[in-house]
């Protein structure tokens, strides 16, 4: 079994689990799902530099280095995704505290919403 297969399947499994949890109906599993998707995306981007073992992009006497650019991009992505998660959690919390309900789907629009400005 190759390392590539392991990494690719890990990405796939993380994505599938992330999508499934994102489709749940309560805020908390959706947040977990988005976090899993974040892992999947970060690893996917990182893997776009191809996999190398024992070749960190720290300049030494070595001749082969792994691709540093995806790493730099993913590094900021990890930090930004923390910010994003925090905001989403805050919104979920606000919604729950405000309505005492952590359902994610709005009720289907009722007749009240259809009253429009007849000015």
């Amino acid at each position, binding site marked *: 079994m190759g390392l590539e297969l392991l990494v690719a*399947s890990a990405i796939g499994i993380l994505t599938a689990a992330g999508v499934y949890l994102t489709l749940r109906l309560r805020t908390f599993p959706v947040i977990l799902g988005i976090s899993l998707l974040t892992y999947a995306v970060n690893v996917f981007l990182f893997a776009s530099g191809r996999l190398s073992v024992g070749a960190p992009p720290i300049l030494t006497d070595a001749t082969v280095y792994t691709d540093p650019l995806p790493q730099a991009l993913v590094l900021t992505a990890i*930090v930004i995704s923390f910010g994003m998660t925090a905001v989403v959690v805050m919104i979920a919390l606000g919604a729950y505290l405000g309505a005492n309900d952590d359902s994610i789907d709005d009720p289907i629009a009722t007749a009240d919403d259809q009253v429009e400005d007849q000015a």
Partner: protein
Amino acid sequence: MSLFLVVALPFLGALLPGLMNNAGRQACAGVTFTVSLAAFIGLLTNLPAVLAGEVVMTGVNWLPSLGLNVNLMLDGLGFFFALLILGIGLLIITYARFYLSRDDNMGEFFTYLLLFQGAMVGIVLSDNILLLLVFWELTSLSSFLLIGYWKHLPAGRQGARMALAVTGMGGLALIGGMLILGNIAGSYDLSVILQNRELIQESPLYLPALLLILLGCFTKSAQFPFHFWLPHAMAAPTPVSAYLHSATMVKAGIFLMARLWPVLSGTPEWFVIVTSAGLITMVLGAVIALFKHDLKALLAFSTVSHLGLITMLLGTGTAFGAMAAVFHILNHATFKAALFMSAGIVDHEAHTRDIRRLGGLRHLMPITFVIATLAALSMAGIPFLNGFLSKEMMLEEANHTILFDTPWLVPTLAVIGSLFSAAYCFRLIGHTFLGKVRDDYPATPHDPGFGMWGPPALLVVLVVMIGCAPFLAEPFVKLVTAAVLGEAAEVPKAYFKIWHGLVPALYMSIAAVVGGLIVLTLFKPLLRVWDAAPRPEAKTIFEAIIAASVSLSRGLIHGLHNGAFSRYAAIAAVTITAAGYHAWSTGTIGAPTRSPQPAGAVEIAGWIMLVAATCGLVFLHRNRLLSLILIGIVGLMVSIGFVFFSAPDLAMTQITVEVVTIILLLLALNFLPNRTPIQSSVLRRVRDVAVALAAGGATFVMAYYFLLREAVTTPISEFHLANSYKGGGGTNVVNVILVDFRGFDTFGEIIVLGIAALLIYALTETLLNGPVRARLLNRKPDQPRAGDMHPMMMVVLTRVIMPVVLLVGFYIFLRGHNEPGGGFIAGLIVSIGVVMQYMASGFAWTSARLRYPYHGIIGAGVLIAGLTGIGSWFVNKPFLTSDFTYVRIPPFEKFELATAALFDLGVFLAVVGAVMLSLESFSRLARRAHVKDSEHPMDIDPSRDPADPTSPKTEGV
């Protein structure tokens, strides 16, 4: 004056009336007048050049890649319209000063008016058609604002919406048409487009472009079947009706037809569409106008009719027709604006505009009577007034125009139109001013002050002057006509004369005037017939169409966008997977170029742990606390994966972010229910599993395929690896990329992070100040709390470890440029150290020892990073160019000083500030929720039993 300034002055000036609103009505109108006057004078300074036949051009490249440039052009046609807009604008401003009552917000009115004026001047001076489109939309918007100026009147609001809907729709069509036109000509500059008549007319896209452009012009200029919005726009204050809806804006469509006349006209399509639309509008407008009782409605339909006349003249495609059109634009602007202002005076003084309630005003308002009568007679086509001249030219042109192979069709319709036109003019004079003085006017009418009658009087002087001495206007009209015709045709030699001899046009003219008088004598029986006849009401049709499209889009939106997040997510996942599948099945995939690397037992074990944790998370996600532990394992395994695959920086970042994320989720879980109830049906879960498996499978296949193939081209990382040490002075290439090569990206990212933290802070504040606050304060914890809120072991440990954490952070920060580490990671490590203090010693204890607010730390970080970048400007380098040098201070070893380190310090501070502000906000929710925080660690919380409400919560010492 530069054309830029002429266009910009009204826009800049639009700021002033609002500011002057409190300085009094005089000052407010005065400043508006001054701004317009300055633009007017600026325009006049270009007169010599225009008279010399030059085309004044000026331009700045704005978005050259899109062909959108601020190119302005002033030729005869543009000058003519700009003169009308600014000149009549001055009169209207004067008039409006006295027309508006004390209750009206004058600053708002004049702001809108100047906005409109600038947009309109922009249209007529634009060389670039994309720029023209921008101004075009601006006129629709400002017209909307002005029609709806009296917000308390439902008619105003409805009229404004109708005008915006119709002209906005036309504007959309126009955008399409202009884009096609520019595409055919290969340039969006009019000066180029106008040179390409053959190219455009031979293009297969000529017809769609023509139709779309005409749609824009017809809606704007209220041509049949889009004429219905204009009368409803009369709900606006009269100065607006006189200015926008008679003299200027409604002529924008005509202007555009004239502007594009050299390239669009002369084809059978143009001739049939434009001429027949113009004819129908002319006759229809004139007939309806006769039976309107509201003075402004009558004038509105007469405007529609005259616009139709001008359109018809442009449609004929002959040089004489174009000249007659130009002349009639001038004449119509003068007499119609004067008439509107007179109608406004009558309304203002008699408090009604209903013709049936008026009559005999001749004796009460002699000045207004003279002004209105002269203007109306001009409109009716009576000799020695300017309307007669252009109407004769129109009849002459109609006499030579053969539409649908029927020689009598156009002349007959032209006479009918003129006949009704004469009739409503006579009715206007006869039923409003002549007749007996009545004693039942709503208010006693009398002539207004000079401020109100002066502007229309000035226009009527022009009416008479041009009417008696047409040779005065001739050179100017011919100059404008030459600009309209361009190189497509020669200016006709015909002279402007009152007496042309016994030509057919004269007989047609006489027939129209006499017929008009006869119709007026038969008005009463005709009105009965008219009132009895069934007619389609345009407004009802329009509202039915609007209602139908609203219900259609509502149906569509409620189907797709019903507020269910999970539905959007599912649609997105399926769509993306399907798009990927499509690309996959239609593209070509080469053979693998990389051989798989063998995986050992340890790697497989790691993979199994990751997969087991992920699957466990899916199955056990209803237990929320447990799922946090599982997601922690996933994060840990991802970090280990990064270490294994040569990404130490990523591993360090991932593991520190993991810690703060888990703390954050724990804090959130404090408020949320502990379990997720089972809600979705089995069917739904099966559907979700299918979507998830499709998405996961697709990602797996894609990742697996590209991992076994080399990149198609050499990655740009070669450059980074080669220049990291030489140019950036660091051996850790990832860090050099972050702070140097792609420093601007990083700069943006720390700003985003800071904004996210501020957003969380703001949301917390909103929650704490809203109705949620009470719920938070009364909340009962659903699990027993720990007896010792601040365990002694933990307090001691965290305080002892704090300096060590700071030292580690400092070390990681310093070595970042050459070894794994850097600002991001150091920031996260320090944040974790501080968070541990909060957790161990309590919120109050920690915040009391906090010297700087976290907002300030975020700001300082962004500022330091930004200033570091700006610093490179002083040595004439682009933003964020880094520099470094090596320093040796005995007895230390030689070390490196880089500006990138300063930038990294900014990153560090921003990360610390953002992470701490987010976590602190969350814990503030918790803090206010229960017991007052204790100053002393190692306290025993007497309120730990939630079942005992009597326990004193504040004595937790």
